[in-house]
């Protein structure tokens, strides 16, 4: 209706070679790069400004975070597999991989929840020190991104997949974009993990 006449929604533009949503999601990810850039910049400035910055491994639970890293990497694989299934026109497999991705995302958040609960039990809060402040802020914001990704994926698992009947190409494109976001969240974690937990 209001999308009447808008071109390149499901087919790529002949010159640029991409669809609207593909360019849109990459612009969004570029801005996300700058968002986390600001936070990493804060981390660097605060860390270099302090003589006695603690090593993360001495305060945080490295085995739990390693497990979480593996969970998130696995979820990235299932995400990309769900897109590949869709590209091979296999809706059933798509649904299965998507459900896995969502479950793994939830598992990540549950593990994170345990980690937080443990910190709170030991009276470690953002107000405890600048290290904990940046730890809670960065992981918290990343957690919100995971939550957002789960909601998007739930949409594409449920009501969003109805598009399959009318415009399978568009659905495949949308799932690819959701995947790009999900992999980006994974990618941020790949950097957060050593920066906060190991160094």
């Amino acid at each position: 209706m209001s999308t009447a006449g808008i071109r390149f929604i499901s087919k790529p533009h002949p010159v640029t070679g991409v669809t609207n949503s593909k360019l849109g999601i990459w612009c969004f990810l570029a801005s996300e790069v700058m968002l986390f850039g600001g936070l990493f910049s804060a981390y660097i400035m605060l860390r270099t400004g302090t003589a006695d910055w603690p090593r993360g491994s001495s305060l945080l639970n490295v085995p739990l975070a390693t497990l979480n890293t593996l969970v998130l990497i696995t979820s990235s694989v299932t995400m990309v597999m769900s897109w590949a299934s869709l590209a091979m026109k296999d809706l059933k497999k798509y649904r299965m991989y998507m459900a896995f991705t969502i479950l793994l995302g939830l598992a990540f958040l549950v593990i994170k929840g345990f980690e937080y609960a443990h910190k709170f039990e030991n009276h470690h809060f953002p107000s405890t020190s600048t290290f904990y402040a940046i730890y809670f802020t960065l992981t918290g914001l990343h957690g919100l991104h995971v939550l957002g990704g789960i909601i998007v994926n739930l949409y594409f698992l449920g009501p969003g997949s109805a598009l399959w009947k009318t415009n399978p190409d568009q659905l495949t494109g949308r799932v690819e974009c959701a995947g790009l976001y999900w992999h980006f969240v994974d990618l941020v974690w790949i950097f957060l993990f050593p920066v906060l937990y190991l160094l």
Partner: protein
Amino acid sequence: MSDKHDSHELPFWRKYIFSQDHKVIGIQYAVTGLLFLLFGFSLMMVMRWQLAYPGQPLPWIGKFFPETMMIGGIMLPEFYNQLGAMHGTIMVFLGVVPLAVGGFGNFVLPLQIGAPDMAFPKLNMMSYWLYFIGGVIMITSFFVPGGAAQSGWTSYPPLSVIAPTGQTLWLIGMAFLINSSLLGSINFIVTTVQLRADGMSFFRLPFFVWAQFVTSFLLLLAFPPLMAAAVLQLMDRLAGSSFFMPSGLVVSGAVSHASGGGNPLLWQHLFWFLAHPEVYVLVLPAMGIVGEIIACNSRKPLYGYKALVYSVIFVGFLSFIVWAHHMFLTGMGTKMAAFFQITTMIISIPSVVILTTLILSLWGGSIRFSVPMMFALAFLPMFGIGGLTGLPLGLAAADIYLHDTYYVIAHFHYVVAPGTIFALFAGVYHWFPKATGRKMSETLGKIHFWFSLIFINGVFMPMFIMGLAGVSRRLYDPIQYAHAQPTQPLNVFISMSAWLLGLAQIPFILNFFGSLFFGKKVNENPWGATTLEWTAPSPPPHGNFSTPPHVYRGPYEYSVPGQKNDFLPQSLPAGQAGAPEGR
């Protein structure tokens, strides 16, 4: 997606309130932005009373303010600081940007590139409503205990961290505005790249589209660090963290509970990383509007279109790496100060190119003094003053003396008020016929123009003198300092000018609403312009063009020799160039 192509089937609230049509959203943005401009300006008119007549009760309206703002009509310093902080915030984030980018960008850009709508209409609608919610939160903050944000629009910590609740609302409101801009900018970029009409190559784009395109990149990449900063400041305020709180603070005699270890300069870096590009977010669309109007009203192509485009791209690019010139006096070393001085001087060069090119575009023209043209012409010297006075501020040594004085206020207001806002007025007068099918009154427009021009200079010109006299900005009572007392008559003069400037907006308000109903009806191209928006009906229907337009030539083919009309629309096929066109 559905079969309903006809917009008339939509219920009222889908068509006019939660509309996904770029034109309706553009008008929503523009009207809301204009209202916020008026509101922000009113805050300043109240402030000007205290500056002209410190400690005297505000006549007539003073008694309507609650005791938390004024006692017996006498303004409290807390309230003065709230007015100052909110004036800045509202004018920049709720007034000028929404009008320039949200309003004109939304309405004009898809039409000018020959697109049926924005690439993501739903996101476009969300962008407006996020902005609206952000605006409501900002206004609400005046009524919470302790009042609105009062640490300046820059919100420097630690002051902002220890400030009352209003600051929290300011940060939450900013988060909404940032996300609104983000959605808007993604939409502009994708629309410009993907949805240009056939034949509309990048160098056939109207200059306005280029300006909006570069602006969108600034919004896309510069706003997120402010989002990060806002999150950190919210953590400091709500979770008790110490990102911006150094160790060993003693606030009003009591040792601070904060854990310490933070750095207040971190906020300044993240804030100015946004806020310097933000200046260009304000100015570039204004330059775009001025370029359109000058070409159309001088009836000739813009001089050096490509130089303009390259300059705008260059300015946008460099605007990311000049931010610390706002921080020369924070104890920065001379090496980094030298770096930022050099980038600041380099960025002035493309600005000079843009201004010179726009002025040279008049040469050889046949200038039609319509109201939009008068505002556009006034933009040139006014922006010139604003740009030039940035020079001493960009030289660290001169900045030692001028930093944080009224000189700074005069400088950036010349860029934003008689510069950008004049260009925005020009845009309103120029595109009003396209949005409504009626023209605004020329007489009222000329009254509006001349009085605005005179009084706005009466407001800002004396501030240079005060700045040179060393008067600090943001002073609740300007006559506490001996060195400020000789300039107090200027404060009275400025306040008078400001109130008269307020009166000078009445013709505009009357004109705007009156012309909606009584304005002269015009055809689709009343200015005889070449760009695509003037080939669509006024107002354009849903979907804009009955058939997708095809573009055959550059944007400013005015007064082409040997043609019947003195303008060739971009969509006119080469063979029919001599054909008569509606004028």
